[in-house]
């Protein structure tokens, strides 16, 4: 780190280092940080004590606030992952992820944006059923993206009628397609229904970490599924897709022309040749009705 350019920057860096450092297991501020630095010494150096609290205790209030706020937000965003891992493993993952990937956005909405990539580097946090946990993370992040991503104007009937095999179709920014190894959609719907949701930014302080009901997953068997995570009338929906639909949508999202997308999607399909025109007509009609094609 280069030499601080100002006293203000120096104070803010030193306070942030203490505030953003993980709490102990008993949710107190550690006296010594992982890098060996003393929080006691740092607190004494920058924070005034008063007649009731030491410098360390005053700094600790902010250290706790930071983690309570992030824990609450992360738990709201990934209740399905918590249900799969159980509280202890989820807590360990959450602490490690948020330590490695602190928020770099003004919005808490983006707190989990790097979780899937981080888990690729830290598979030890995925528990005994790593594919199940990973699938849930992908679905939960897709849900967040589908909830408030942009909705562009729908492609008109005239424009749709004019497309040919060389056309490139744009799909709604809120649409996500997923190929998953486990049927996590039903599980997530159950968990979200039980927990409710109220994720939002506020400017109040928390007296404690808000804990949510954790529903443990007892028996769930792997089964490959394809899903479109999308928004309809401002609610998020999980629409099951056939492998051909998934291939077609993935190719269109990747920017392939309609002709190439159909080729890619149907090359390995077991769908009989004579049924393919009707299949294509039906899925395009459904997707157009859902407003997935956009300008």
């Amino acid at each position, binding site marked *: 780190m280069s030499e601080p*350019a100002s006293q203000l*920057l120096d*104070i803010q860096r030193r306070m942030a280092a203490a*505030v953003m450092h993980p709490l102990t297991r008993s949710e107190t501020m550690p006296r010594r940080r992982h890098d060996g630095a003393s929080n006691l010494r740092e607190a004494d150096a920058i*924070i005034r004590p008063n007649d009731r609290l030491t410098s360390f205790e*005053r700094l600790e209030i902010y250290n706790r606030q930071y983690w309570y706020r*992030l824990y609450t937000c992360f738990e709201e965003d990934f209740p399905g992952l918590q249900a799969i891992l159980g509280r202890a493993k989820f807590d360990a993952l959450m602490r490690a992820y948020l330590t490695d990937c602190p928020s770099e956005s003004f919005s808490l909405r983006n707190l989990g944006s790097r979780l899937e990539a981080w888990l690729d580097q830290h598979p030890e946090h995925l528990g005994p059923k790593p594919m199940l946990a990973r699938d849930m993370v992908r679905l939960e992040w897709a849900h967040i993206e589908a909830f408030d991503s942009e*909705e562009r104007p729908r492609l008109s009937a005239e424009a749709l009628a004019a497309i040919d095999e060389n056309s490139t179709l744009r799909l709604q920014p809120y649409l996500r397609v997923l190929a998953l190894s486990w049927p996590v959609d039903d599980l997530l719907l159950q968990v979200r229904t039980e927990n409710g949701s109220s994720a939002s930014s506020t400017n109040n*302080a928390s007296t404690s970490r808000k804990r949510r009901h954790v529903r443990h997953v007892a028996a769930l068997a792997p089964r490959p599924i394809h899903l479109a995570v999308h928004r309809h009338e401002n*609610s998020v929906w999980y629409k099951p897709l056939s492998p051909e639909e998934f291939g077609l949508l993935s190719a269109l999202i990747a920017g392939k022309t309609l002709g190439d997308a159909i080729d890619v999607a149907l090359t390995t399909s077991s769908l009989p040749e004579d049924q393919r025109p009707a299949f294509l007509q039906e899925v395009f009609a459904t997707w157009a009705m859902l407003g997935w094609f956009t300008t």
Partner: protein
Amino acid sequence: MPANRFNSFTDYGVGIGLRIPHYQHILSRHPVVDWFEIISENYMVDGGRPLEVLDQILEQYKVVQHGVSMYFGSADPLSREHLKRLKQLVRRTKTPWLSDHLCWGSVDGRYTHDLLPMPYTWEAVEVTAQKIRQVQDFTEVPVVVENVSSYAEFHASEMTEWEFLNEVVERADCGILLDVNNIYVSSKNHSFDPFTYVNSVPAHRVAQIHIAGHSKFEKYILDTHDHPVLPAVWRLYARAIERCGPTATLLEWDDNIPTFEEVHAEALKATKFLKAAAEAAPNTATAAVQAAATTLLEPAGAAR
């Protein structure tokens, strides 16, 4: 006094914070509310239900934007993406003024999502005032800054909090969102007289007032926004209204949120103070507001 250039010469009454648990009630029952305050960041998204609800609210109510993460006091430069999205929202809501906090919360591009206290130094005055001016210039609406609750003070501080606030708003030429609950909380945590603070604020710059509840612990008080407003805070509010006149007032309730009616009823207690101040002749305003306070606070105690 209350309608000033810092709140675009509006004369808003008593509002409440727009919160998710109340969406359904508001949209289905259309209760009479002077205005709603929204947390800007919750609506700085590209689409979906948050904006749908906001648009429905905007059809029927006056809305003022309140931010929680601009961090005027951070040494970091302002985020262009944040500013861009904020301005988009300003155009959508047509907010007559825009508030955020006199605090810091990010450093080296990392966000704490907390309202961290400032070291009250001359360097911090310069940095903070400059960034407020930048936001004001970019968004093209008056910016007002809110004093925060704090639990720590810095060795480096060179002035009191109210002196710092006054220096910042003078240099930025901006308004003040005076949070009397935050003043009370900080006064207990740092052992100063909250009336000294309220009496030191430049009244002509106060564009809005916040009231809220807090939680008392053994050694400190926390700004939890999960209770009704306590009598001591009402007394500070009465003094603020005496000095500033009938100012747009908002109740914050962010945790353990009760029914809409309960929150609104708590907020409307402020009406008594505002009416008293508005109806009184200038030379009798003090007595009128104090009388209102006494009525509201009995038997807890008379207003100071």
